[in-house]
């Protein structure tokens, strides 16, 4: 209790100090160059160095213009050149190659491993895996994401890939369409992401047994059966780092870029664009992997999100704990003994 009080007092003091001191500092910074200039005039009338030193700063109180608008009193803004180097450099080049490499890897994986099939025969008995609400939220997010990814890629890479093919006029039409789709679907995606988070967060809480799944890479390479909850560790990683983290980062920076009418300066827009671009070139490859596993890569996955239900065999082979839980909740114990995989996992122990 006492600690708490002390802490609160300390924080209040800090806040007061900040409020009192900050304007002093900025005032000092803003006027020092002006003072320097005034002094310089008496000693070296021909030396305007202090004036020119400020040209790139623009935070000088005495730098003015008659033209109204955002940052019209800034003569030279240097951030644009940095932004150009980063955006036209690493983001375009490495981001582009990352996309190509991941696509090729997925193709290679499919070529080598093919689709993961069910081992046992379908029972014909269906279990509900996704409620209608789950599916509406998932598909709204997924469709808006795909629109954003495609249209965003047109803005970032189109000049190098599509423009030479389509020519200037046609590509410009495509770019205008892309830009408007992106800028209107963006906020929709942000809303969907929040809904998706709350819809699926409960079953994405990491559990001890997710470690085992991770260690065995979900049996993706070995073909071994690794039991999991409603969502396995791979899906949880996609949920937390993809949907949640990258989704929030892309949404926040997207909003900054989308609503220039709030008067944010160029530096913020440049920074937002860089972060948005990095988030995008990470998000899209992750999404490609997710889409692959959810469609081509696994037999029965796509229909589960499409129709909401899965065959009991599918449930048992892909999400055995969830299957067992669902069966228990239905009032009768899962038929027969636990599968060999569950028995093995139990023997190895979670901790």
């Amino acid at each position, binding site marked *: 209790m006492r600690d708490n009080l002390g802490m609160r007092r300390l924080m209040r003091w800090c806040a007061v100090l900040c409020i009192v001191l900050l304007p002093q500092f900025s005032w000092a910074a803003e006027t020092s160059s002006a003072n320097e200039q005034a002094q*310089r005039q008496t000693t070296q009338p021909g*030396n305007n160095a202090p004036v020119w030193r400020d040209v790139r700063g623009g935070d000088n109180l*005495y730098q003015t213009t*008659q033209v109204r*608008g955002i*940052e019209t009193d800034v003569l030279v*803004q240097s951030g644009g050149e940095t932004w150009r180097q980063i955006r036209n450099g690493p983001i375009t080049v490495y981001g582009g190659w990352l996309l190509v490499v991941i696509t090729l890897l997925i193709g290679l994986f499919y070529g080598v491993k093919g689709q993961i099939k069910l081992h046992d025969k379908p029972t014909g008995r269906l279990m509900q895996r996704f409620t209608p609400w789950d599916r509406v939220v998932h598909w709204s997010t997924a469709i808006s994401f795909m629109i954003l990814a495609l249209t965003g890629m047109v803005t970032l890479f189109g000049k190098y890939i599509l423009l030479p093919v389509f020519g200037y006029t046609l590509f410009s039409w495509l770019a205008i369409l892309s830009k408007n789709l992106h800028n209107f679907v963006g906020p929709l995606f942000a809303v969907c992401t929040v809904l998706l988070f709350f819809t699926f967060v409960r079953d994405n809480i990491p559990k001890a047994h997710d470690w085992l799944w991770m260690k065995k890479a979900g049996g993706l390479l070995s073909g071994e059966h690794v039991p999991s909850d409603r969502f396995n560790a791979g899906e949880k990683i996609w949920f937390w780092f993809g949907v949640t983290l990258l989704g929030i980062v892309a949404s926040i920076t997207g909003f900054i870029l989308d609503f220039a009418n709030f008067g944010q300066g*160029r530096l913020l*827009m440049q920074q937002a664009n860089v972060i948005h671009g990095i988030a995008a070139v990470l998000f899209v490859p992750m999404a490609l992997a997710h889409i692959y596993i959810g469609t081509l890569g696994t037999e029965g996955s796509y229909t589960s999100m499409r129709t909401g239900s899965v065959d009991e065999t599918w449930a048992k082979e892909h999400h055995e704990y969830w299957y067992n839980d669902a069966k228990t909740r239905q009032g009768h114990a899962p038929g027969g003994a636990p599968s060999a995989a569950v028995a093995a996992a139990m023997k190895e122990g979670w901790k």
Partner: protein
Amino acid sequence: MARMKFLCDAERCIECNGCVTACKQEHDIPWGVNRRRVVTLNDGVPGEKSISVACMHCSDAPCMAVCPVDCFYQTSEGVVLHDKDLCIGCGYCFYACPFGAPQFPQDGAFGLRGKMDKCTFCAGGPEADNSAAEFKKYGRNRLAEGKLPACAEMCATKALLGGDSDVISDIYRNRVLKRGKGSEVWGWGTAYGKPEKQPAAQPGAKS
């Protein structure tokens, strides 16, 4: 071929905004768009300086490099122009430009900014020289008429110079030689320090 450039002599600019007005009038520019503006450094402080700034028609133009639809082009005289029919109004040229030259007619909610507009060095756009379509989108094409930019022509103190870079830098160099100051381009003021008459500075004082 001449290389067209702007140069603003800060020792002469009196912040009358005549260039800004001349530009607006010459090209019939809508409200809210300012192809040229005058910025005053250390306004009200002894030694204040004003500079008229617009698109500087950069050699390795940043706007050109980032435009997603590649709608910029540079004329053989070094003037950076763009095609409004292709522009998608993304604002990237504005993020990249050091001088804040690109302008937009709309406020940018949902990324809707309208087509970018900027100083053309009074050289119009891709349409036929002095056609109605060219005037409507880019303003008058004075270079095609054999005239220099309206802002520089209008400048009462001849602070703002626009034209062949060899010619205007000669004019500027002569001025600097005559008046013996305001030679930031070559750094004279800094190099030669205080005038002789001043008492010697105390050791450690800033120079």
